[in-house]
């Protein structure tokens, strides 16, 4: 099937969409994932269980680059749960390029101990199932997850996400109508994240650790909701 238009908010009833996917899917692992379903469109933010997710990758192109680490943390509007945090290091399929080694501070010896991607993705799907996934700049997580599953499960994946960077972009857009240049390729993910966080007086963290970034994203969404939305807001306003 063709990729949906992500920038258009009106198109999907995610709950119905996941039910349909469950019937169409050939892979039992993906069927299980879709079976866990998602929330109704009108569900209040205060009733939702979120998972903040972050991938560190060897580059920006999901067809050429690999995931090297994954971090996630479960949270809700009130609390981010450190006891429900996970992180994995993955042996990448392509060779680590020198420059990305520098950027991410992860060395080959870290990765040699890493479990293989297939095993990690199975665990990851289990963590994400039934929750609303929150990322900062959804194209990375969505593309890399989809293309890696295509390679390993012979089937892609799609599910709703809340993108804290899109929320910031929309707010900026609302503030200065007409100047919509945000969709240019962003310089790096973490600068965007750090900058957004500073608007809510959130502390600065060292960049390029998947789990730290996942926690940072969760904190950012809590702050964005406190500032711009309410616990009563329906999830359909935020997910994409």
């Amino acid at each position: 099937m063709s990729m949906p238009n992500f920038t258009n908010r009106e198109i999907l009833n995610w709950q119905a969409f996941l039910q349909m996917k469950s019937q169409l899917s050939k892979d039992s692992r993906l069927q299980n994932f879709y079976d866990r379903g998602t929330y109704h469109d009108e569900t209040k933010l205060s009733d939702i269980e979120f998972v903040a997710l972050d991938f560190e990758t060897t580059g920006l192109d999901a067809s050429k680059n690999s995931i090297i680490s994954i971090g996630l943390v479960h949270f809700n509007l009130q609390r981010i749960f450190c006891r429900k945090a996970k992180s994995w290091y993955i042996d990448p399929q392509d060779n680590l390029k020198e420059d990305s080694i520098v950027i991410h501070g992860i060395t080959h010896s870290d990765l040699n101990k890493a479990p293989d991607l297939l095993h990690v993705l199975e665990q990851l799907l289990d963590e994400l199932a039934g929750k609303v996934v929150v990322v900062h700049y959804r194209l990375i997580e969505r593309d890399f997850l989809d293309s890696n599953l295509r390679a390993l499960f012979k089937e892609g994946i799609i599910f709703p996400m809340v993108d804290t960077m899109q929320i910031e972009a929309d707010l900026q857009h609302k503030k200065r109508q007409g100047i919509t240049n945000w969709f240019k390729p962003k310089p790096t993910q973490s600068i965007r994240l750090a900058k957004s966080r500073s608007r809510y007086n959130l502390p600065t963290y060292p960049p390029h650790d998947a789990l730290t970034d996942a926690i940072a994203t969760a904190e950012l969404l809590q702050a964005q909701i406190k500032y711009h939305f309410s616990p009563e807001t329906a999830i359909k306003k935020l997910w994409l």
Partner: protein
Amino acid sequence: MEVELLEIQDFIRQYPPFDKLPEDALVEITQSIEISYFRAESTIIEVNAKINELYMVRSGIVEVYRRNGDLYNRLDQGKLFGQMGLLTSNKVRFPAKSLKDTLLYCMPEEIFHRFCDRYEAFADFVEVEDSTRLKQAVENNNNDANSLTTSKVKTLISRDVVIMPTHSTIQAVAQKMAEENISAALINDPELTDDQGNSFVGIVTEKDLCAKVIAAGLSVDTPVSEVMSTELISLDHNAYIFEAMLLMLRFNVHHLPILKNKQPIGLIEVGDIIRYESQNSLLFVSGIFQQQSPEDLALLSTQLKDCFIRMVNEDANSHMVGRAMSEIGRSFKQRLLELAELELGDPPIPYCFLALGSMARDEQLIVTDQDNAIILDNSYDEALHGEYFIKLSKFVCDGLAACGYSYCTGDIMATNPEWRKTQAQWEDCFADWIDDPNPQALLNCSIFFDLTGVYGRAKWAEQLNAFILRRAKKNNRFLACLARNALNRKPPLGFFKDFVMEKDGRHNNSINLKRRGTAPLADLIRIHALAIGSQSQNSFQRLEDIIEAGILPKSKGQDLLHAMELISLVRLRHQALDIEFDREPDNNIEPENMSDFERRNLKDAFLVLSSAQSFLKYRYNANML
């Protein structure tokens, strides 16, 4: 799978009590944390609500309130709250709200109690709060304030120890000793290294060289092992100086190797201890009276700083230091007056030389200016006696200035003719201040209400004090005026807020601990003391009188005692630091030089002062003027 929450773990380990926890405990508590974001001005916990978490401020600022709505504390990064509720009824005792956008780490009650049981440092930190913590801080400082018994021997080590191998000739060792200008050397035998890496086997002193070599006619080519003493008396570097003295006396030795991890790091001699002792304040005072001119006194006064530092390092409490420094200051004055009378001849009429302010209160520190005055006999006749007292005052005040007691900027000195009055004139002057008070006129003369006679007819000062007390005790309007003035100088509560606001790590601000701390405290204590007719001059003694009189709310007097002691301690510790780093000592304290301990406790002390000021306003109707 072990999840590494390094960012959070590294944050919490910077702050007490987590800085005292072992690594596995840090991991455990980090993994139990829940993070929560609060916008500025939102309620975090409400009074009487159920509480089952300990909170730590990750970023932002949290304000904690009393039940009546007064601000109780302002917490920044790394600070904890909620522990009182957890320790008592699981009900919120002090409500909290965010002043700025705030990120909190919430730690579950279960782990909190477990850590209290398991880690003493954790329990100590969380179980005592504000005034209790202040009290504990002060008492820890005073615990062993028995001067000589509290300084460690390692502070006496001033040079490296010389160690020679056993096969060296006596001459080689003697040459080395001469070269290094030392009176003893240690001897080691690398082949006899014991399992602790310890290889030194003996000591050779000048006395050995004299008795065993020269007197015995031994060849200087003999190996030193033949004459060294192998009965080694040594001491660990953490032992106290008095232990070194005891050891030297007991074994009749004059040299003592000082060990660290069983390795010699220095050698102290009897002379080191005597030199140390000679800076003692009592010796200093007797030294003052041996000087024959103001110039000699000025020369001696340069050693005052060493004496001060030594007392601070010995963990003397502020009362002890204040008393010793005041005693020294009085001695300078007394000796200068003796010298003045020698030069000018006997005084034509009796007089009493007064010390005012901190010296009168026995609260002088190292940075101080001179505040003094003279009571003249009622028979004073300006035409006959004026010139003598002009000269006398000038002699003393100039002499004091040369000794480091700078001239009083407010000109409250005996050289000012206005402050040389007869007994009768002084009584009229005080009667006027007390009976017809106005805050403006009293603003600059509160210092006169701390007075003591240091020379001449000292009894006159006592009589004047008694006169003041009789007059002041019943005069509500006078007390109200003083109270109003005492409220002019507020403790710097906001300072800590500004301090956390500084983001770039540079802090150009500082607080004056005298102006914002000890002086307003002394002011308010003086008012209570006047109100109850206390004859004491010292703030601590006044406070004890005040507590006995029962005019303060319960336990507030104790809180004030501890606040006064804490602020004074920090102040004198920072003056000692200034001196040790060759800076001009002052009353300012810069945030970057403050330990976490000091910052936390200073804040508590300022809170005590602030609430005592509110009480003062209410007690003496300072608003009614």
